[in-house]
């Protein structure tokens, strides 16, 4: 199977869906770039080149550069979605949700319910998230828990290039508004990605490692760290199951509860803040539904309750990494041992 980067996989998914369905349009700031400028047209393809090459194929009528006016164009994408287009709007960094959130959570997310099931809003918002880029407090946040909180939105976090392509195709074909989170530190990471179009269904978590001792439940970039830890501990004879949620909404409760019950020891890893986040959400679910099979308290590995710092010295200790995940897995085992000895 051909190797492709996360960036290429996303570009390919967009291209194939635009070829398949003329109602799919892209919009966002500099998604082509160079509009009105004397030099190269399609100069950017987004700030990290993810959509480069699409405008020359589909033209400016389907790859729409926008002024810097997220409230208006994200809202326009929602309105277009409700009336017959299938827009993929780029919110360059998820941190910019602040200037357009109303159109997402009060408008797009609620049309179907408020209008008594009559509306369909096949809107995709692609957005970058995550720390590790030295991009400081307003360009590094995760924020997917805020979107997950809102009924009516679907929230997707692809953990590698293969996942990115299949989940983005599903997002475009889905009839609900979907927020698609791309981790900015992953664009150059490669995986095996089929050339043909394929869709990965929402709400079906992927078990990427299987082990008997501890279950690590996570999403997005953290899946790779969890896999690394599982592989390392496997050599020591500690079996770690890793669950990649893929979508935080809808949530695959079944896989979460099944894998949690099987090992009885659960670590939830989430790059976002700890309060009201995915880690707390999953921990509560497991605590409520699997109490009888738990052998140790559920542990959360998250970023701290602080904005993302700029300084590399601080950011490096801010982002959860394999070391902290490994420590949490070991602590979960120690807890279990301590309890058995009582």
């Amino acid at each position, binding site marked *: 199977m051909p190797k492709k980067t996360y960036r290429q996989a996303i570009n390919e998914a967009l291209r194939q869906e635009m070829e398949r369905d003329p109602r799919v349009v892209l919009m966002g700031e500099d998604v082509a770039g160079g509009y*009105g400028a004397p*030099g*190269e047209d399609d100069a950017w393809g987004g700030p990290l080149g993810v959509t480069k090459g699409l405008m020359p194929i589909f033209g400016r009528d389907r790859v729409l550069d926008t002024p*810097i006016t997220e409230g208006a164009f994200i809202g326009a994408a929602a309105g277009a979605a409700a009336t017959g287009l299938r827009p993929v709007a780029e919110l360059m960094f998820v941190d910019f949700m602040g200037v357009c959130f109303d159109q997402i959570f009060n408008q797009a997310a609620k049309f179907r319910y408020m209008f008594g099931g009559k509306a369909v809003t096949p809107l995709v918002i692609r957005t970058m998230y995550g720390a590790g880029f*030295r*991009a400081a407090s307003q360009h590094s946040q995760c924020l997917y828990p805020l979107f997950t909180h809102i009924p009516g939105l679907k929230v997707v976090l692809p953990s590698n290039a293969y996942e990115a392509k299949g989940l983005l195709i599903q997002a475009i074909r889905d009839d609900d508004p979907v927020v698609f989170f791309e981790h900015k530190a992953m664009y150059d990471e490669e995986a095996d990605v089929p050339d043909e179009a394929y869709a990965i269904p929402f709400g079906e978590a992927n078990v990427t490692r299987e082990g008997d001792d501890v279950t690590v439940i996570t999403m997005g970039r953290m899946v790779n760290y969890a896999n690394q830890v599982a592989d390392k501990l496997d050599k020591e004879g500690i079996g770690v199951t890793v669950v990649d949620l893929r979508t935080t909404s809808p949530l695959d409760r079944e896989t979460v509860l099944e894998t949690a019950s099987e090992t009885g020891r659960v670590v939830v890893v989430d790059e976002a803040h700890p309060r009201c986040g995915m880690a707390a959400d999953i921990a509560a679910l497991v605590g409520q539904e699997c109490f009888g099979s738990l052998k140790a308290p559920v542990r959360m590995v998250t970023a701290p309750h602080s904005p993302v710092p*700029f*300084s590399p*010295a*601080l950011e490096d200790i801010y982002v959860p990494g394999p070391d902290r995940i490994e420590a949490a897995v070991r602590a979960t085992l120690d807890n279990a041992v301590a309890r058995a000895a009582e």
Partner: protein
Amino acid sequence: MQLSREDLLKAFERMCLIREFEDAVHEEFSAGNIPGFVHLYAGEEASGVGVCMHLDDRDNIASTHRGHGHCIAKGVDVAGMMPEIFGKKTGLCGGKGGSMHIADLGKGMMGANGIVGGGPPLVCGAALTAKTLKTGGVAVAFVGDGASNQGTTLESFNLARVWNLPVIFVIEDNGYAESTASSWSVSGSQTERAKGFGMPATEVDGHDFFAVWEAAREAIERARAGEGPSLIHVRLKRYYGHFEGDAQTYKGANENEETRANKDCLMLFRRRVGEAGLLEGEELDAVERSAKQRVEQCLLQAKAADMPTEADLLTDVYVSY
């Protein structure tokens, strides 16, 4: 009001300091020594300095992601700025903000901003404070051409007018927002837009320090006199990419070179004061040299400074944490 010799020297010094600072940051970034996103102000010096020459510490400015020049123009010390950009503990913000969030509230510099259009509403607030507490202060929002399309900016025009706030909106139109031309992205004209909100507005050549200075003088005098907000549309060019690392393929062939050769604000300033016999070439050379030394010195200090440590990670989230 006229510019005194001291004023002219001060203005030239600040413009040189910005140019030297940005050129140094450009070099250091290219060498891989500076982390993160960096947006440089080189080429636009006459705008920030032309406006801020009329301001003092009671006045506030809000900047953009392209904030180093506004800091220096407002009198922020480069000795605190450089280590901030390197992420050092000795930086103005302890290394927590970096280039995009550099701020010095004591100097009335309310921060560079990572959110396009983040500044104008904040400046309305600063102006409200000045008006309510009768400090005599005004507030200036530096706004890019791209940011001029943001709802927050246009809403602030209206709020500043209906509250009759001492605000000056300075639209720094360098022709591009990222790679997108302002000739495409901005509907209508900046000055007509402002007039639609009932604000006086003028357009100036932003490479000409004296033109900016004069337009800012009028707008700021109006604001101080309680006559409300104004807008200045400043046309200029940036010398570097949108951010460091931008290949700038959207620009015209030789666009940067031609601007540097024909419209450089330092060159135009020298020519103007020389022709008018206001300052000697040697005096200006000396100012330029000392700006260069100042930047070299703070660069050395910044590089030698310590990084913050784990103990700093969770401080400053709240007033006491």
